[in-house]
């Protein structure tokens, strides 16, 4: 009886394994940066190229750092959510990734600007340091400048309510 059940058990185990595999997103690569200090960087500001946006700008508050580009379609789909979050007081800082000045500014003029400040990462160098694979990607950075969460792809309503919003509330309580 038990012997004849063995193939069935193997089948069920394999089926569970493969079914689990179906629900995994291969794009979700765990970032080694979580729990580590955000990389040091200095970028010219998108709106004021003579002024700088650097890691120091992020310190002392909980920030959402969003890598985006005007040529990125999923960034557009994420944009209305960013606008809503900015309205709710979330401090969103942008890394404008491999974009031209005009395109980026045109995008913000057209769709609205949810960002407190934007850095212009023309050659994608800073993007590499943040481990950006494909825009949009968002990082939740705590008051000490440590990366606490990474969202690959657009922030979804589910990711926001389940993970990001509670984490922001928690991080806001931590000493700066």
């Amino acid at each position, binding site marked *: 009886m038990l012997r004849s059940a063995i193939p069935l058990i193997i089948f069920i185990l394999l089926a569970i394994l493969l079914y689990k595999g179906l629900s995994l997103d291969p794009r979700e690569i765990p970032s080694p940066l979580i729990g580590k200090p955000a990389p040091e960087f200095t970028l010219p500001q998108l709106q004021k190229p003579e002024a700088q946006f650097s890691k120091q700008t992020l310190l002392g508050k909980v920030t959402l750092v969003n890598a985006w580009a005007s040529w990125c379609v999923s960034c557009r789909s994420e944009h209305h959510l960013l606008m809503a979050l900015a309205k709710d007081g979330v401090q969103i800082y942008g890394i404008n990734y491999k974009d031209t000045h005009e395109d980026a500014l045109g995008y913000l003029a057209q769709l609205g600007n949810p960002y407190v400040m934007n850095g212009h990462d023309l050659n994608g160098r800073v993007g590499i340091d*943040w*481990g950006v694979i494909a825009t949009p990607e968002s990082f939740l950075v705590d008051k000490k400048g440590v990366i606490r969460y990474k969202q690959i792809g657009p922030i979804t309503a589910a990711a926001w309510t389940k993970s990001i919003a509670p984490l922001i509330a928690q991080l806001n309580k931590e000493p700066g």
Partner: protein
Amino acid sequence: MRLLLLLCCLQIGLAHAIVESPDIQPDEFTTNAQKERFKALIQDLRCTVCQNQNLADSHASLAKDLRREILELMQQGKTDAQITQHLVDRYGEFVLYKPRFERATYILWIGPFLALLLASIGFILLVRKRAAQTTHLSDADKQALTEELRRNPVSTPSPKK
């Protein structure tokens, strides 16, 4: 023959494309050894965008940037290990085509050998069991069988036409 020649040409073209990535000019390498090192490095690192291509083969813009980054790190005098670590620090071990041997990858490295071992053990047990099951006829049985066969000869079936 002509097809073979064509294939050879294609092959050379492909190999060429891989070695001389259009974004990195050959004169950016000071020595041939440096060029070989670069080639080896980008062969073993994964393009995180396309995932199933290495940095050498990928035309993704990130792969291009990373090739440039690797070249610059080489020019800064970084060792291969330092360059690899530089990328692992940013993108995680996923960039390594050959995963390191550590806790998270034990099952990956040992798994196949373990499976082979288990299968071998199973096979040996099965063979032993089968061998044990083979019935041995006693002399009396053999004699009875011969007697029986003599009385009722088994007719060999004639081959079908």
